[in-house]
């Protein structure tokens, strides 16, 4: 009797061990078959800044006013420059395409903008024709994880490029990284 009890206990113990090994449990949330995968881009493509014709707003972010101008961030995409001389009829002048841009500030004729970890200096003496005059690398520490908590994700491989986004995908195996 004693022996059966011991045997079953042992079996149970082994079962629980086996169970744990088959499903590694990293975070406090169980892996549900989905995870986040980094979207990479070439550093050269990322640093391309273009002044384009006015575009309509899609996902507007932060705003900044300077003189009679209004700057509207397009989340992760760039900056709309608006002539706001008459607030009843704001005039959309141009769009500065900057990947990884969320923030802006202006002093005199200089517009400062982030582009992932870089700080761009843009001459806006002529707001219709802004010119990037400088790009300072590694100003803003960037973290290699998705902007969420309690998620599994594919670890970032710097050799593949710069992470510009995260996409949620089905994953067969539980990825190594968790946050």
């Amino acid at each position: 009797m004693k022996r059966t009890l011991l045997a079953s206990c042992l079996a149970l113990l082994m079962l629980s061990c086996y169970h744990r090994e088959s499903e590694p449990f990293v975070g406090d949330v169980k892996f549900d078959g989905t995870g986040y995968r980094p979207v990479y881009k070439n550093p050269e493509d990322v640093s391309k800044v273009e002044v384009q014709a006015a575009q309509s707003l899609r996902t507007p972010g932060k705003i900044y006013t300077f003189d009679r101008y209004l700057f509207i961030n397009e989340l992760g995409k760039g900056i709309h420059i608006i002539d706001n001389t008459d607030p009843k009829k704001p005039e959309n002048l141009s769009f500065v395409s900057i990947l990884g841009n969320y923030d802006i500030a202006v002093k005199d004729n200089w517009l400062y903008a982030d582009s992932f970890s870089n700080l761009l200096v843009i001459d806006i003496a002529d707001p219709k024709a802004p010119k990037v005059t400088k790009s300072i690398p590694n100003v803003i520490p960037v973290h290699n994880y998705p902007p969420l908590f309690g998620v599994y994700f594919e670890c970032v491989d710097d050799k593949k490029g710069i992470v510009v986004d995260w996409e949620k995908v089905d994953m067969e195996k539980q990825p190594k990284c968790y946050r």
Partner: protein
Amino acid sequence: MKKLIPLLFLGLAAVGLMLLLNACNGDKADSGPSPQTGTGGSMARFAIAENTLYIVSKQSLEVYDINDGGNPTKAVTKNLGVGIETIFPYQKHLFIGAADGMYIYNNTTPNAPELMSKYTHVLSCDPVVVQGRYAYVTLRAGVNCRAGGLFSSLDVVDIGDPTKPQMVNSQRMDSPYGLGVSGNKLFVCEGDKGFRVMDITDPKVPVQKHFFQEVPSYDVIVGNNQLIITGKEGLYQYKYDDSDSIEYLSKIPVL
């Protein structure tokens, strides 16, 4: 949009008091003589004070000297080590909204800010604006802001002594993002829920005057009795006056 012109007539005494208060706050402290800088919203991670550019990253405050505007040079990095959300310069102080509280830095030497104090609260997302001796902080609960906070609120913090910030009022909010303050008005962006206009004739006790549920809002810039509001449906502009009326000026829609 017609809904946005509701009038709330206050007693003459109240109007008189507001005019008086507005007169005191009429001049903006940041329009100094030398460098010309612009104005950002309360959700900003970039801020300029005089000839210094401040950038808050997730964990640190990066300080850049921009005396030579075309050539920013790094002055110092201050590590805070927690999730930093926003920065708001006001007079000789920097107010930094982080996930665990509001940090107050002394900014007398702009290139070398010094930590004075910290107002701690539940984990949440929390932009801050300041006027006079009061700071207004919104705390938003939710997954992307850490699930620490159970509910969202608007806190009023007495910063009369910046080394000892003290909460004097707190009220429930829905899902507050940016906010703006000017004269006797406080504006709170409630995300998809709308946009609140509050009276702060008594600066310790914001009292709601309007709640525009049809204006989804993320951040706001207030100046010269004018509001610029950004939200998921576009950019709205309004004019307001001391009689509590709000006039729609324009909208740049999201297409």
